[in-house]
């Protein structure tokens, strides 16, 4: 179990004494059987990685944060029957989380639920340590906006690539070929690059923080 949690990048907070270590597939089987202990292990193991994805796509303090985490877990459980262990469970979960968040963002745009309700805290409001941080957060806001506008598959693939996943992992979790995953990543990069390049206000930001456009 510890090995599983270590691979997922989390501490085992629920089992102080050593116990037989299930593989990921065994853990999945136990969760599917309704084992609450296994569900807790799954939660503790996957949540930190899912947090990273939510923060990257929504910013730090989004009011729907907890609901989206819960939704993502429910979706992961629904999809477990198709998990064959071809990629790490954390990769699988991350892909599903990213898909849930992208779907939420698109739905939110469609339903025009964008006006800040008061409880939503913008990243730009959070304390900053330097002007550079402010600049980069402003860039993050634009990047999120453009990712949200891009065709879903390429935006998701490029985002997952940025999250550290290899094309092979993306291919497995999206049930596509590795070549198709490479193509989606590249198209996503080109698309985002073109959109950011077309934003004259960002020229100074890129020249300041390095990189392009």
């Amino acid at each position, binding site marked *: 179990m510890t090995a599983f949690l270590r691979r997922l990048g989390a501490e085992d907070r629920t089992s102080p004494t050593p116990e037989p270590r299930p593989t990921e597939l065994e853990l999945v089987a136990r969760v599917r059987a309704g084992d609450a202990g296994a569900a807790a292990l799954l939660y503790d193991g996957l949540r930190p990685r899912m947090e990273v994805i939510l923060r990257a796509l929504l910013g730090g303090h989004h009011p729907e944060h907890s609901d989206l985490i819960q939704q993502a877990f429910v979706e992961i459980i629904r999809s477990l029957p198709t998990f064959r262990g071809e990629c790490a469970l954390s990769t699988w979960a991350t892909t599903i989380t990213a898909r849930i968040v992208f779907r939420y963002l698109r739905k939110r745009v469609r339903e025009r639920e964008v006006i800040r309700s008061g409880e939503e805290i913008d990243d730009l409001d959070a304390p900053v340590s330097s*002007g550079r941080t402010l600049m980069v957060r402003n*860039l993050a806001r634009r990047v999120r906006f453009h990712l949200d506008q891009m065709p879903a598959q390429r935006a998701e693939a490029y985002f997952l690539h940025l999250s550290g996943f290899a094309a092979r992992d993306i291919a497995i979790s999206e049930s596509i070929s590795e070549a198709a995953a490479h193509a989606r990543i590249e198209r996503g990069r080109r698309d985002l690059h073109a959109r950011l390049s077309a934003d004259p206000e960002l020229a100074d930001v890129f020249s*300041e923080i390095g990189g392009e456009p």
Partner: protein
Amino acid sequence: MTEGFDRSIREALFETAPPSFAPSPQERERTIAAIVAAANRERHRRRWIATAAIFAAAAIVVGVFLSLKRSPATSTPNTIARSLHGDSFRVRGDERTRLAQATELSASDTVVTGADGEAALELTQGTRLRLRGREARLVMISPAPDMSFELTAGTVAVDVRPLLAGERFVLRVDDVEVEVHGTSFEVERDELAPCEGVFARLRVVEGVVGVRRGNGDEVLVRRGEHWPTACDAPIASAPTASSFAPQPLALDSSSEPRGALPPPTAVAAPRLIKPTPPPPSSRAPSDLTAQNDLFERATTRRQEGDTTGALTAFDELLARFPNSHLAQSARVERMRLLKTVNRDQARAAARDYLQHHPNGFGRADAELILKD
């Protein structure tokens, strides 16, 4: 552009977001309970599906047995095809039959048009398809109630009558699947001009259709829209709602309005609008530190409840650095602040925002303010 660009975007998304709140024990318990509940639901659902599948299999066996006992003469075809113009054929295995007035179609049959040919198919409930194009090919994978077709060449215009419970209508082009939610639409397979990696082009005339590609999510395409949205080459000739309006299958091509496209305004505007960068000489002098300081001052004032101070700082930022990287954010913040104090000024700010950033991230906010 690869590495430097990826590094910048990665830094923006992953390294500068403020830390999120740690989940409370209650939230953890709630989520774990939701996981267990979802697992239980999923288990019950699968059990139910397995049971239903057994009953369905039994019903099919009984149905097949009963149908075999019936005389074939009593069964009525639920899909017929006929030629509208030129020669068209039904291909069944190795057999090629010229379409007559009402040629019956079965699953796996293919309808092929000859040069300048045009064929019509009529299904139960009045759903109609019109196949055209030189050697256009349409395979009927399954008839009603689970109507499924595959277009392998040419163009097909489809008018789906309201579906009954349990009925579906799906049209495939390569790995693209178009599913109907009660509508009229046209699909073309254009081998010469793939776009977004697909040969299919879809334009919806009435209602809504869903498009899936591979195992991807369904995208809804509504009246007047086309798919793929990023492709600027919609179908050359789309059907109108009246294309099917006369009597069923009275599809005389000479009497129909051909090439009657919906007016351009009905077509969804391209989502990406490339703003023209201002010439270098028109740009305000770039002083990033001053821009950042002004923006930070404004947000601090706003957090302290000093709306006037915040507005003043935002105004100063916009006046001194109209092309700042923070200008759009400042306009959005200014518009939101004004909404709380002065509706007219908020509306003016919203109009100003839309003028500067017609496709910006604050567009929905601006439109809501203008609607108020």
